[in-house]
C-alpha cells in the first residue's frame, strides 16, 4: 500500500472502512448463521419435490439425466428466460465494447506475433487439443439427456476451442477461423429455435414447450423427444454468445487503439 489517493471531505480512510466492514460483517454473519441454523441437518433432508421428479422423470420423459429433464422440460420456460439473459448480456457487451469515436482499428499485420513468445510445446498441445475439444463439446451437448451435460456446458466447451486456437497460434489466425457473421447468425438461430420448438409444442401438443416427438427408449441417443433438440439449440446459442464475448475482449486488448492524444 503506497500513497493513498487524496481523500475528499467526509470520506473514510481505507483502514476505517475496513474496520467498519468488520463490525458489520460480524452482525451479518450472526444473522445469516441464526437464520440458517433453523434448517434441518443437511444429511437428513429428503427433498420432496426432487424425489417426485426423480421417480417420474425416466418414465415420463425418457430422460436418464434428471437435471436435464428439469432444465429442458419441467422448467423449460425458465430455461428460455435463462437463455435470453445470456443473449441480452452478449448484445449489451457488444454495445459497451463498440469502437468509440476517438478510437481506431489497429492494423492486424502490425500485431505482435505470438509465434516468438509461445513455446513450441504449448502451440503443439493447443493445436492438437482443438479437434478433441470440439468433439467433446458435441458429445456433451448431444448426450445431455443421458448423462450429465447439455447445451450450456457443451456450448462453453465449444467456445474454448477457439481460445485454444488463439493460444496456439495468433490473433490473425483466430480471426480467420471466426466468421463473425456466422457466429452472430448461429447465436440468433439458437435462441430463436428454442422459441420455435416451444411454439411447435403449443401448436401440436396444446401447450408451450410441450413435448410433441416420440419419446423412444430411455438410455438411447435418439430418445427423450424435444429435450435433445432444445439442448442443441441452447448449445449453439451459448457457443455463439461466448465466442462473441471472447472476441470482443480480445479486440479490446489487441486491435482497438486509442487515437494519439485522445482519451480522458
Amino acid at each position: 500500500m503506497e500513497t493513498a489517493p487524496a481523500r475528499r471531505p467526509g470520506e473514510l480512510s481505507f483502514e476505517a472502512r475496513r474496520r467498519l466492514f468488520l463490525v458489520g460483517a460480524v452482525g451479518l454473519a450472526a444473522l445469516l448463521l441464526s437464520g440458517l441454523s433453523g434448517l434441518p441437518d443437511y444429511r437428513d433432508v429428503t427433498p420432496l419435490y426432487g424425489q417426485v421428479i426423480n421417480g417420474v422423470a425416466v418414465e415420463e420423459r425418457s430422460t436418464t439425466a434428471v437435471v436435464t429433464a428439469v432444465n429442458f422440460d419441467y422448467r423449460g420456460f425458465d430455461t428460455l428466460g435463462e437463455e435470453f439473459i445470456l443473449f441480452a448480456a452478449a448484445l449489451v457487451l457488444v454495445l459497451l465494447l463498440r469502437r468509440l469515436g476517438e478510437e481506431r482499428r489497429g492494423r492486424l499485420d502490425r500485431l505482435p506475433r505470438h509465434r516468438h513468445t509461445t513455446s513450441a510445446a504449448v502451440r503443439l498441445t493447443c493445436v492438437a487439443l482443438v479437434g478433441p475439444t470440439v468433439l467433446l463439446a458435441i458429445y456433451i451437448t448431444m448426450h445431455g439427456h443421458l448423462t450429465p451435460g447439455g447445451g450450456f456446458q457443451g456450448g462453453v466447451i465449444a467456445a474454448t476451442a477457439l481460445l485454444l486456437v488463439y493460444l496456439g497460434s495468433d490473433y490473425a489466425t483466430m480471426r480467420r477461423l471466426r466468421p463473425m457473421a456466422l457466429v452472430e447468425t448461429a447465436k440468433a438461430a439458437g435462441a430463436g429455435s428454442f422459441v420455435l420448438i416451444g411454439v411447435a409444442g403449443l401448436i401440436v401438443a396444446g401447450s408451450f414447450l410441450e413435448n410433441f416427438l416420440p419419446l423412444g427408449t430411455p438410455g438411447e441417443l435418439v430418445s427423450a423427444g424435444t429435450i435433445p433438440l432444445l439442448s442443441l439449440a441452447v448449445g449453439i446459442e451459448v457457443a455463439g454468445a461466448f465466442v462473441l464475448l471472447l472476441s470482443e475482449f480480445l479486440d479490446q486488448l489487441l486491435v482497438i487503439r486509442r487515437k494519439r492524444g485522445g482519451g480522458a
Partner: protein
Amino acid sequence: MSFLPYAVAVWICLVGLYGVVTSRHLVHTIICLSVVQSSTYVLLLAVGYRKDSVAPVFIDIPRDTPAVDPVVQALTLTDVVVGGAVTALLLAIAVQIEKHLDTLDPDELDPLRD
C-alpha cells in the same frame, strides 16, 4: 457437523464481501463479487443433498436408487449462467472505465469528476 455446509456458504459470502470492501482494483472487485455469488452454489447443493444418495443420473443404476435433489442442481446451473453473464458485463464496464478515466482504482473514481 450437521451445520457445516451452511456455515461454509456464509463464510464464502463474507470473505467475498471483505474482498469487495477492501478492493483496490476493479477487476479484483468483480472477481470478489463472483466469490460472493459462489456461496449460493454451496448453499443450494447443500439443501439438495441427501445421505447415501447418488447423482440423479439413472442410465446404469436402478430407477428407485435414492438420488439427490435434481431441482436445486438445475437452479445452480441457472445461477452459474447468470453469474457468467454478470461478470462479463461488469468486466466490459471496467474496460470502459479504464478508457475514460485512466484508472481502475475504485478510490480514484470521483462521481463528480467531468
